[in-house]
């Protein structure tokens, strides 16, 4: 936000440039990050994630500032994940998480000082959904490396984070958040617990996932429980000796046959990222203020990025399985932002008023000083300069986790023990293939799950 000067306001161009320079650097930095993403994107589209990660590393000093470190680590952690560099990916994402923690603590106590700053010069601490979904990647990194115990730790951290956010918003007393539980992560926890042999705990997690899809995701984000979830509940219930509960979920169309299928085969579970998370752009609200000023507030708005894929399936030499959408990241981001918009607008307006008051203060102090020296108009000049700077540099914070997909899908396929080649096929609304990713050397063991993670921008 910023103040538009009175038409009569004047300033020396050199003075103005001096004052504007740091703000222009911030604007350039935001554009630098966007430019970097645009250069990295073709490599992502080609599936060359290792090169994309190297490119991002090379651009670090030029395009990213320390205040953007959360965004940098999230982006590089994601690229490294899809490049198969699992340990390095986790390291980046944990670095992002630690920075988020520190910044979250600071933001709670930052207070009035933040009112006078442009949001782009503040340190980016990440959106709520970004703070949670980073754990999906850390959990996947561990699961793909066969470390179920640590994968579960990451899922628990996600649940702790959601709880902390809920508590924070409750204390804030505002509108809060509508993203209070992550159904997909509950389900993933269930699968991991089942793999570990903790069938009772798995049952609890699957039922939580089912309830979260039904109670939150369906009404708020437009997707209900995935078709395979009732079957997961039935299997876990049977393994826990809870036949009555199994019967209850059998009524939803689940057969319970997956227990035998898993006993005779292994299961391939592919987590599929589709599209790109929404882009932030500026929207402005302008309102008149006393003294002929215009108060202008910049707010970020979310723009979904269109993608072609409407259906994803696995194909293992003719054995096929359809994927199901499990995490509508784009919808979560857009709906939660819409829910919080009145709070965000109120904060931005308060910041605009604080800046307006600061300009008036500069004017009054400057005029008093110039009267003291027998001249006049210094305060008006300074006030005018500052308000011009504010006007032309007002910009919303458009930083976000650019490499995060718009949606996550899950595909599951029972395969006999051995090594397989599996294709992940992406199709548009007309059923035309828009992308295909081949998973070579998928090793399947009887009774066990094999996890894979792929991504398409199409």
């Amino acid at each position: 936000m910023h103040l538009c000067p009175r038409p009569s306001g004047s300033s020396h161009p050199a003075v103005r440039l001096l004052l504007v320079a740091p703000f222009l650097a911030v604007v350039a930095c935001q554009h630098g990050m966007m430019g970097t993403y645009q250069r990295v994107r073709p490599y992502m589209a080609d599936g060359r994630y290792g090169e994309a990660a190297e490119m991002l590393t090379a651009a670090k000093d030029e395009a990213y500032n320390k205040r953007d470190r959360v965004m940098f680590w999230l982006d590089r952690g994601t690229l490294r994940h899809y490049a198969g560099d699992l340990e390095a990916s986790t390291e980046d994402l944990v670095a992002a998480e630690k920075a988020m923690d520190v910044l979250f603590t600071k933001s709670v106590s930052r207070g009035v000082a933040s009112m006078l700053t442009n949001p782009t010069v503040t340190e980016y601490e990440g959106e709520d959904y970004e703070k949670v979904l980073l754990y999906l990647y850390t959990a996947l990194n561990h699961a793909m490396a066969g470390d179920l115990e640590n994968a579960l730790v990451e899922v628990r951290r996600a649940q702790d984070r959601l709880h902390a956010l809920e508590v924070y918003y409750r204390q804030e007393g505002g509108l809060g958040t509508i993203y209070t539980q992550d159904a997909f992560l509950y389900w993933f926890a269930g699968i991991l617990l089942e793999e570990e042999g903790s069938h009772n705990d798995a049952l609890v997690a699957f039922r939580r996932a089912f309830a979260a899809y039904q109670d939150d995701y369906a009404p708020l984000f437009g997707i209900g429980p995935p078709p395979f979830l009732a079957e997961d509940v039935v299997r876990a219930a049977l393994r826990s000796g809870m036949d009555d509960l199994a019967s209850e979920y059998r009524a939803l169309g689940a057969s319970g046959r997956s227990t035998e299928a898993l006993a005779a085969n292994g299961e391939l579970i592919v987590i599929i990222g589709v599209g790109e998370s929404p882009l932030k752009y500026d929207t402005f609200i302008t309102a008149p203020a006393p003294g002929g000023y215009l108060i202008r507030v910049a707010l970020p708005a979310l723009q979904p990025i269109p993608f072609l894929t409407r259906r994803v399936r696995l194909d293992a030499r003719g054995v096929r399985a359809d994927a199901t959408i499990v995490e509508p990241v784009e919808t979560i981001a857009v709906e939660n932002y819409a829910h919080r918009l009145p709070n965000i607008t109120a904060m931005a307006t308060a910041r605009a008023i604080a800046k307006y008051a600061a300009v008036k203060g500069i004017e009054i102090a400057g005029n008093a000083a110039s009267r003291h020296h027998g001249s006049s108009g210094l305060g008006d000049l300074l006030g005018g300069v500052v308000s011009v700077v504010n006007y032309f540099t007002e910009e919303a914070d458009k930083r976000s986790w650019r490499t995060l997909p718009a949606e996550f899908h899950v595909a599951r396929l029972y395969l006999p023990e051995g090594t397989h080649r599996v294709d992940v096929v992406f199709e548009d609304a007309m059923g035309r293939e828009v992308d295909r990713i081949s998973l070579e050397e998928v090793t399947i063991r009887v009774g066990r799950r094999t996890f894979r993670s792929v991504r398409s921008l199409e």
Partner: protein
Amino acid sequence: MVAQEMIQDCLTRPWLEGFKAQNLGRLPVVRFHSIKNRSSDRIDTKFFSKQVERELLNSGQVEILAAMDEMTDVFNEQELEASKGGPDAGDYSQELDADFILTGWVVTQNETDGYGRTVKAYLVTMELIDTKTTRKVWMGEKRIRKIVDQAAYSW
């Protein structure tokens, strides 16, 4: 040391003398399943597990079998022997059966000390289970508290 204290406690309980009395003084065979991290904290439990195993082994009061996650290496070695047709190839008859299983896990809780600092409380629980009867013959718990250091990554 937590591992030392817990194992000392375990080995001074009645189950040990009871077992020896019933088995003509034979030492019990214990399979130790490594300590599981059931918390939401990133704890390396392998180090603690090894300490527990070392305390058990050095006590001389029990015999220790390889942990389940180490068995893969043993099986691989036996498979290799089998493929070479060695004298003991595929001969699993010398494997001992475990009389007891020792399991354990760690959970954590965040607390605040008198100075407003975040203190992490770690609760370690271990159980000894008779493999034949599935009876739990010993359970130990140890709680330790540590001040959390919020170390950030350097940019």
